[in-house]
């Protein structure tokens, strides 16, 4: 019987050869189609996302900005001219200390 070290060496050497010489598997023809299908799906998803981003950038973002600016201008005009319900509510709130609790009257 050979010493254990030598036996382990022999097995190790055989496993290295077995690993290096193992046959490579051939892919089924459907494999390639499956990969390409996934690649096309990813491509289409990316296109959809960029279309969504374009809509957001070109339409939603400018519209939201314009609306926010208009609302701001309207608020300034309202408060400045002492007009509208917003002005009355604000005055009610800031006139004295008890006014701070007035939002509760509105259910806030």
């Amino acid at each position, binding site marked *: 019987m050979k010493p254990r070290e030598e036996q382990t060496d022999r*097995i*190790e050497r*055989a496993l*290295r050869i*077995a690993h290096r010489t193992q046959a490579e598997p051939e892919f089924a023809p459907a494999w390639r189609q499956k990969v390409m299908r996934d690649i*096309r799906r990813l491509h289409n998803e990316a296109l959809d996302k960029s279309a969504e981003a374009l809509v957001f950038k070109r339409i939603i973002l400018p519209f939201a900005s314009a609306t926010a600016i208009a609302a701001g201008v309207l608020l300034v005009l309202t408060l400045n001219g002492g007009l509208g319900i917003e002005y009355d509510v604000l005055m009610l709130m800031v006139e004295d200390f008890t006014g701070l609790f007035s939002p509760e009257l509105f259910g806030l």
Partner: protein
Amino acid sequence: MNRAPNDFADADVIRQVLEGNVDAFELLLDRYQGHVSRIVSKHVPRDTVEEVAHETFVRAYQSLNNFRASESFKYWLSTIAVRCCYDFWREQYKHRETPVSSMSRDCQEWIDKLLSERSQESFAGQTRRQEALSLLHWALEQLSAQDRMVLTLTYFGEYSVAEAAKFLGWSVPNVKIRSHRAKKKLRKVLSKALPGDRGVRA
């Protein structure tokens, strides 16, 4: 004059894909499916090679923007393939619930035959048997995902430590140390498989 698809260099094909001609990716698939299959089959079980190779190409497509034309596409793809194999094992080990099985009787018989072979020819014949690969898988199964990757790349595979480090994204000293320790662990596992010191499966 129109060029045949095979006349396009990898960089040209990649440029076409990035410009939106996604079908051009099929050329890369044609060129490198054998190469990827070769790498992947050395690291993962045979029945999962297709799945991991699939993942490799999908990841390559998703990262195509990061590919630099100055480097070799083949090498870049090899890195992705190795990392997909590594991820496969990390995932497998994470979900591994059953303990490592003991060595099969076929493997034990194979070891006995191998150790008793005298001629070089019959030794080589034994290495071509399926039991050799079964034993290898059994032995590697007892190592961690990192250890098995580093061993299959540097010790069983034909890559240098520097190449393995680049493939795995580790430092060279880390690969060296891990490879050394993994080799020792493997020897320990194999020495336990020697006649007289075995866990036998019923």
